[in-house]
């Protein structure tokens, strides 16, 4: 029996076994993610930073799967690890900065980066606490791909298409900016 189906049979909020297993898995992933995230911003080697990012993103995928959002978790691996980090690494390796330590980070930039980071952290915390403070995990079975497809192509069809057009516009814009002839 698959692990997801096994979890689906238990009540995810009251069944002791499922809860312990989930908590242990969450703790392992969360600690790994926090440690990698810290190393990612403190390391002086850009390639190492990108590789730490891979660990953080795999942790995110793992947490999605733990929450029963299997499709989102797999998409996380496909899009972020398989495509975006690969493009990061590709771009970094074409520059000279990928070899040896990069000491180009000045104090002024560090201050600005810290400020932005603090601001993002504040806004995200406020938004998450505001909307999910008393929310409980859905007690139903993990969401299936078919359900996600149904909701994207019926209830959320307009925002979905709008995002697609936006991404297309960004793509065309990038090509126009990059073209010289």
């Amino acid at each position, binding site marked *: 029996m698959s692990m997801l189906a096994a979890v689906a049979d238990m009540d995810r909020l009251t069944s002791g076994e499922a809860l312990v297993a989930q908590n242990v898995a969450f703790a392992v992933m969360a600690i790994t993610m926090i440690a990698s995230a810290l190393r990612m911003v403190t390391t002086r080697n850009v390639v190492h930073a990108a590789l730490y990012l891979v660990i953080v993103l795999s942790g995110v995928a793992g947490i999605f799967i733990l929450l029963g959002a299997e499709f989102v978790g797999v*998409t996380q691996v496909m899009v972020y690890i398989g495509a975006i980090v*690969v493009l990061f690494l590709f771009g970094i390796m074409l520059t000279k900065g990928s070899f040896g330590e990069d000491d180009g980070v000045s104090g002024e930039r560090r201050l600005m980066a810290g400020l932005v980071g603090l601001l993002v952290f504040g806004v995200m915390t406020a938004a998450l606490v505001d909307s999910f403070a008393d929310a409980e995990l859905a007690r139903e079975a993990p969401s299936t*791909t078919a359900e996600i497809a149904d909701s994207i192509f019926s209830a959320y069809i307009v925002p979905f298409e709008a995002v697609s057009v936006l991404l297309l516009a960004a793509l065309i814009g990038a090509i126009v900016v990059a073209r010289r002839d």
Partner: protein
Amino acid sequence: MGPVMGTLTLAVELAWWQQTGIRAVVGLLAVLLPAGTLVYLFLFKMMSFMQSRLGPMEAGPFGSLQLLAEVGKFLQKEDIIPEKADRIVFKAAPFVVLISTFLLVLVIPAGPDAWFIDVDTGIFLALAVSSISVIGILMAGWASSSKYSLLGGLRAAGQLVAYELPLVLAVMGVVIQAGTLNVQEIVMAQATGEIFGWGGIGNPFIITQFLGFAIFLVAVQAELTQPPFDMPVAESEIVTGYLTEYTGLRFLLFFIGEFATAGIFSALAATLFLGGWYVPGIDPTSDLFNVIGPAILLGKVILVAFLIFWFRFTYPRFREDQLQQLAWKVLIPLSLANIVLTGILKVVF
């Protein structure tokens, strides 16, 4: 999960750790056995026959134990790490590639009850984890701190990203026709399908999705960085690219990874297009398939792998721009057209 599990779960209820142990062992076998078979049958023997020579003949009958001798040879060699290499990344790179390979094998079913995991996202999960290997290759290319390795790594990344699109898009046709991402249900859809009301051989998707099958095979060839798509490891241009600095065991790991992935992609193609563990004439829910399913699947894997290696030993290397043009200007538009056509026909019929 192999025939063992299918029958055992009926007889005795195994603890979670026992099931996991069996899964790990069977998974190891499912990766290594097809890989070894492909190396011996195709790399050693078929290539030799195509070049009018015998190939290995000394170790064992018809040289069948040559593989063990090769493994022994690699294990004896010194594990050299270049002085300026990034040691940790250099050491970790082959394992990242292997992780991708071992995760890939999980979704392939070998019988109605013989699977590792029965996930809803099935084939999507397989294509997602197959993209992790690119990171391992980039790590190897960069950490070696050698010009040839870096060039090879960059070539590999550009190629793998470009050919992942046709790979995914070619599978879409099958998914639309089967109406599911779950690999086991895709096999069932082929086993119980009918061709214009005639269910004699089921409905293997290679008939309706032949274009998808062809695109899938070409994209797999490029994903495996095999000739004619072997620019990332072109020995005459960049001294085997990202593998230049690897020796001994670590080179062996890359080598196993390459051929194991060849075997697993063949298994994916066999499952998606040739009906997987099913053969016509037996009821697809029969327990018999838990026993003979793995053998049937292996037979189909060898059939698909034969095609892959036949192309490998026949065609000369592409040029870098030809490679990108083939992906973006031929394969991707063709696979998009295939999706549109399949969608229309699915709605009409």
